[in-house]
């Protein structure tokens, strides 16, 4: 919208702007007045300085140009003017137009010096020629405008430099504070930047992995694969991503995930690659262990099912009746399940033999003081614990039906120990019944006795024997002591 009020007359505008104005110092005669009128006609702003002091003030405040009569350049105030001219900023050079002292044809040395001290001055002869004066002033103001423009450009440049410096500082602060290793390469793949973390991780001297030396930090088995992936990315611009082993400062290799993205110019060419390495060692190892565990668990579950299958099948083979079979199967599988629970609690590895024995006897204790249990708290493996539990269950069930647990006075002495030391150390486990009813060798070997003599011995890699002495049944298991946990 055009608002005529908003447009100031040219003259008024210029009078407010010293930088495009001419200061006039010509106190004698009518020169100042004449000059002013001439400049007014040409729409050039001007201001009359009544003294050198005032002129100096204008010079300090970036006056556009100065028109001065030569005879006015005397007196002590000149020094201040000269000093101000010396103290101009590097871009500034106030142009002077000097009206020559027409009376003298040759200058004194002092007069020449005073002129030189103005630095940037041209001489016009008097009387004033209108066109000469105007041209000289215009020329001076144009030159002065160029000076201002140069200053603008320089200020902008300095600002840009400062911004760049701060941006670099910011980049380094961020790149060195994150947890990742960060690196960068030229478009041809030449690595020229690594952040602090890279050097902390690898422990190598600064700069020693520049260029292509990074490949040597990779595990030998991963070098070729990494190289070919990197070459592909460089050629196609596809993002780079690969898991590999990187040499840690401790000497070990650790799994890392390497990734990189290209940065493109405005015309689409790749000008830089920025990449990172993330330490994934723990995750990788955990994943490997998880796979191992899953496979192990799967295997164990299958084996457990096969064991249950064996128990059921064997029991059915031997049972006198379906009811008998049902009771046997339930109690045997129940005992196995309990033994499993205890093993899960000790994370499928080791438990102590005294705990196993106590747990197996719990359902058979009646408070009547049948049992005497003695033996050290030796560690026992999971398979052995399970087998021993089942064997004790068989022995106790049998004792309750036909042996020492079937009468109040019956006694069962359970004891175990390790005999000898070192390689020949032998583990021995005993179950001895006494004061029970008279015992006879059974006509048929049931599941229980086979479980005890064969399976149990197998799990301990040793030998087991049931004997039917007249005082009562006894059972002994012998194996090398490592059979307890192998």
């Amino acid at each position, binding site marked *: 919208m055009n608002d005529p009020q908003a447009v100031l007359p040219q003259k008024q505008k210029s009078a407010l702007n010293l930088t495009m104005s001419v200061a006039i110092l010509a106190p004698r005669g009518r020169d100042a007045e004449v000059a002013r009128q001439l400049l007014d006609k040409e729409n050039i702003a001007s201001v009359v300085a009544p003294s050198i002091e005032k002129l100096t003030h204008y010079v300090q405040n970036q006056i556009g140009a100065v028109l001065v009569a030569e005879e006015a350049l005397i007196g002590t105030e000149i020094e201040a003017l000269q000093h101000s001219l010396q103290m101009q900023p590097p871009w500034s050079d106030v142009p002077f137009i000097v009206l020559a002292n027409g009376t003298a044809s040759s200058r004194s040395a002092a007069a020449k010096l005073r002129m030189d001290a103005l630095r940037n001055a041209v001489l016009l002869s008097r009387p004033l020629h209108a066109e000469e004066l105007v041209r000289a002033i215009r020329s001076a103001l144009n030159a002065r405008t160029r000076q201002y423009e140069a200053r603008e450009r320089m200020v902008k440049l300095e600002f840009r430099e400062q911004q760049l410096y701060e941006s670099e500082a910011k980049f380094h602060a961020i790149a060195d504070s994150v947890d990742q290793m960060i690196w960068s390469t030229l478009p041809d793949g030449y690595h020229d930047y690594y952040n602090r973390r890279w050097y902390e991780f690898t422990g190598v001297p600064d700069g020693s992995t520049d260029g292509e030396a990074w490949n040597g930090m990779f595990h030998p088995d991963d070098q070729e694969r990494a190289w070919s992936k990197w070459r592909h990315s460089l050629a196609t611009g596809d993002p780079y991503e690969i898991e590999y082993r990187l040499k840690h400062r401790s000497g070990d290799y650790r799994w890392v995930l390497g990734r990189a993205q290209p940065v493109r110019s405005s015309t689409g060419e790749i000008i830089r690659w920025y990449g990172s390495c993330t330490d994934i060692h723990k995750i990788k190892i955990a994943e490997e262990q998880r796979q191992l565990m899953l496979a192990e668990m*799967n*295997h164990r579950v299958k*084996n457990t*099912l*096969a064991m249950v299958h064996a128990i059921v099948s*064997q029991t059915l083979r031997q049972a006198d009746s379906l009811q008998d079979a049902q009771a046997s199967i339930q109690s045997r599988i129940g005992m196995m399940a309990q033994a499993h629970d205890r093993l899960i609690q000790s994370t499928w590895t080791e438990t102590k033999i005294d705990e196993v024995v106590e747990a197996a006897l719990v359902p058979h204790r009646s408070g009547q003081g049948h049992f005497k249990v003695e033996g050290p708290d030796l560690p026992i493996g999971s398979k052995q614990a399970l087998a021993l539990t089942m064997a004790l269950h068989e022995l106790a069930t049998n004792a309750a039906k036909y042996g020492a647990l079937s009468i109040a006075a019956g006694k069962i002495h359970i004891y175990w120990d390790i005999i000898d030391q070192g390689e020949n150390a032998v583990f021995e486990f005993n179950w001895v019944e006494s004061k029970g009813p008279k015992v006879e060798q059974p006509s048929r070997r049931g599941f229980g006795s086979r479980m005890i003599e064969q*399976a*149990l011995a197998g799990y301990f*890699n040793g030998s087991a024997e049931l004997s039917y002495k007249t005082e009562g049944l006894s059972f002994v298991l012998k194996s090398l002591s490592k059979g307890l946990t192998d």
Partner: protein
Amino acid sequence: MASEDKSKPAVLIVEDEPLIRMEAVDMIIDAGFKTYEAGSADRAIAMMELHDDIGILFTDIDMPGTMDGLKLAAYVRNRWPPVAIIIASGVVELERTSLPEGSAFFPKPYATSQITKTLHDIAVRLH
């Protein structure tokens, strides 16, 4: 239990889990075969060397020691070609090409009837 038939080949049962081994032995005795047993590949080879009436190898795959069931089967096929091979296993991922030629495979748990039938077929073939 069926009585041993001397004209039938004896079976060597290789399985590291004692309970499962016991069950396999029972099942094969019930089918009318004489049995030997071993808990590892090393013991199995020792048995093979000791008893020349063994005509059938019945083995699991997962076993302790340096040789697993597959390696054992390959070894036996190589050293005693006439011996028939039955492999039973709980192993889930198995390359069928790693089984010796002409051997039978059963995933665990196996049906007794299937094993028994296979044993009888083999006995007829070897006769």
